[in-house]
């Protein structure tokens, strides 16, 4: 999952980046409403974690702007205000979930996964296709019931391909999912990850669609 964190407190933001990174997410950070607008305009995220009190305005304005632009990216609000009225206001403005500060990192990660899942139109937490099962909450994978050791990036590539089994994902899409801004991307990184995955899963599981990208074989 690629997520955007809009939080002005640098210590907390750094913690979120590392913490959610440990949960297998690719995290980008911005610290103001203005930067959030730019980030949302240029990059597709699977979920947004939004702090309500930002130096140049309210996170609710960012949320309102997103929903006015018909941006359907799921949003989780992070706020120090935990009065019911504040929560209701945020949810009614189009937020998908809510976490009060201070929060539990595991709970926050679970909530982000949940809104990402719903945003992707799925209900089951597990991704299954072609005998492969992925458990995003534990970053564990099985092939025909046998545990499979995958690196964080391999897991992310496979998870993207398995969100909609049979759908073609381009190399660019996969790169966007894997790497946040400022991360060095080797030109053949995606090929390398796919190569490793094929070695672990078997060649036929991931099909190359020439000129378009990759997809997971649906037929057994």
């Amino acid at each position, binding site marked *: 999952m690629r997520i955007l964190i809009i939080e*002005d407190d640098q210590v907390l933001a750094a913690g979120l980046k590392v913490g959610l990174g440990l949960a297998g997410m690719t995290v980008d950070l911005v610290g103001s409403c203005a930067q959030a607008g730019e980030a949302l305009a240029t990059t597709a995220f699977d979920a947004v974690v939004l702090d309500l009190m930002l130096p140049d305005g309210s996170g609710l304005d960012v949320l309102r702007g997103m929903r006015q632009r018909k941006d359907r990216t799921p949003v989780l609000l992070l706020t120090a205000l935990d009065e019911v009225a504040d929560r209701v206001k945020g949810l009614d403005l189009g937020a998908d979930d809510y976490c009060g500060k201070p929060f539990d990192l595991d709970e926050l990660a679970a909530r982000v996964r949940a809104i990402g899942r719903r945003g992707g139109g799925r209900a089951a937490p597990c991704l299954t296709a072609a005998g492969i099962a992925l458990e995003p909450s534990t970053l564990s994978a099985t092939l025909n019931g046998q545990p499979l050791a995958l690196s964080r990036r391999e897991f992310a590539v496979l998870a993207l391909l398995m969100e909609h089994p049979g759908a073609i994902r381009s190399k660019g899409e996969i790169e966007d999912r894997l790497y946040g801004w400022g991360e060095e991307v080797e030109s053949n990184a995606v090929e390398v990850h796919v190569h490793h995955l094929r070695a672990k899963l078997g060649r036929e599981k991931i099909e190359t669609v020439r000129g378009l990208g990759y997809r997971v074989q649906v037929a057994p």
Partner: protein
Amino acid sequence: MSSLRRRLFAILVAATGIIWLCGILWIFVGAKAELEHVLDTRLQEAARMVDSLVAQNGPAFAAAASAAATPERYQRQLSCQIWSLDGRLLARSGSAPDVSLSDHAAGFSDRRIQGEYWRVYTIDNPAKGVRVLIGDRLGQRDQLAVDLVKGLSIPAILMLPLLGGLLWLSLGRGLRPLLAMAVELKAREADDMRPLQTQHAPAELLPLAAALNNLFAKVETARRHERDVTAFAAHELRTPLAGLKTHAQIAMAAGDPGVRQEALRHILLSVDRATRLVRQLLTLAKLESGLAAGQSERVCVGDLIEEIGAAAQPSGKDVAVRIDPALRDFTLTANRDSLAIALRNLHENALQHSPEGGAVVWNVTPDGRGIGVEDEGPGMPPEEISQATQRFFRGKRQTPTGCGLGLAIVEAVLREMGGRLVLENREGGQGLRAIAVLPPATSPCP
């Protein structure tokens, strides 16, 4: 309970009663004067008639005398006597007494006879040698006037309850807008501070409605301010805790020693921040409770700033600090610790907002009553200046280490001393100037 309706009712009924009473009195006096005139004329005419009868009929005096006493509604009102000029009573009408009605020679006169007052007109007839006297009992005259007034008063008194009822109902109707306003206010939720609708309010209620609306607006502003402070406070207090907890969880979960080290470093940073926040909060609480008001002493501001500058934590930036030599001669009587807290906060703020290679300059204001500090930072957006001293307020150009209490503390110290804090952007948009304006009493002594 005093009721406006009852009060108005009483006033209106009393006023109406007094006006009616005055009217009746006026009519009584006016009618009486008119009556006197008319009755006097009648006396005069009757006397002339009797006189002419006497002149024509000779000595048939009795007939003439009774002819004067015309039987009308006020029967036997007129009494007639005919006296010879030498003092014998020749004739009198039935209602006339036997004593002479008047001892006057001719014309009108008043006289009391056997306890009754009479009004008499006298004509002398020297040709026949008689004197004709026509009299009228004054008591009867008064009775006439009293009857007239009675005729007016009785309907008025009978009408009074009717008038009262009408007044009572009209007052109820007239006071309905007031009642409507009261009902609207009563039906409100305690936190409903919407202004009252005034477009249909009568002119007399407008000042009240306006005053109420004004009050509502003030309460609402105060409440919003309170809510803002609460929101800022919650943010400033809970965000470091959230960071702390997140990094602690990372440190526990991370397998990579590098990640764990980094998380622990952040935990330390967060604890430092929380410590600073707690210190600031305690300082503010102490200042607000007045506990900080300790002994005042002579403080040389220049030396104090120098100490603060020397003790300031290195910011890692190359910022020059310049202290105006005039400050060395600037001494005042104040609580040294409190003043040091305020000046340290101003100093730290100036350092934090200074760019690399910038300068922080302390000086005395031209009027000699304030201590100013200038930095070369970005300044403050004008709309934030009024909010800057609010607790937990952090503007757009915040620094990572701030918690929004520094300027609130400075202001609390200066207020305690009787001074105030003035913030202004420097001319040309080059940085901010903060001035601690001191009260005249603590002004510099050379």
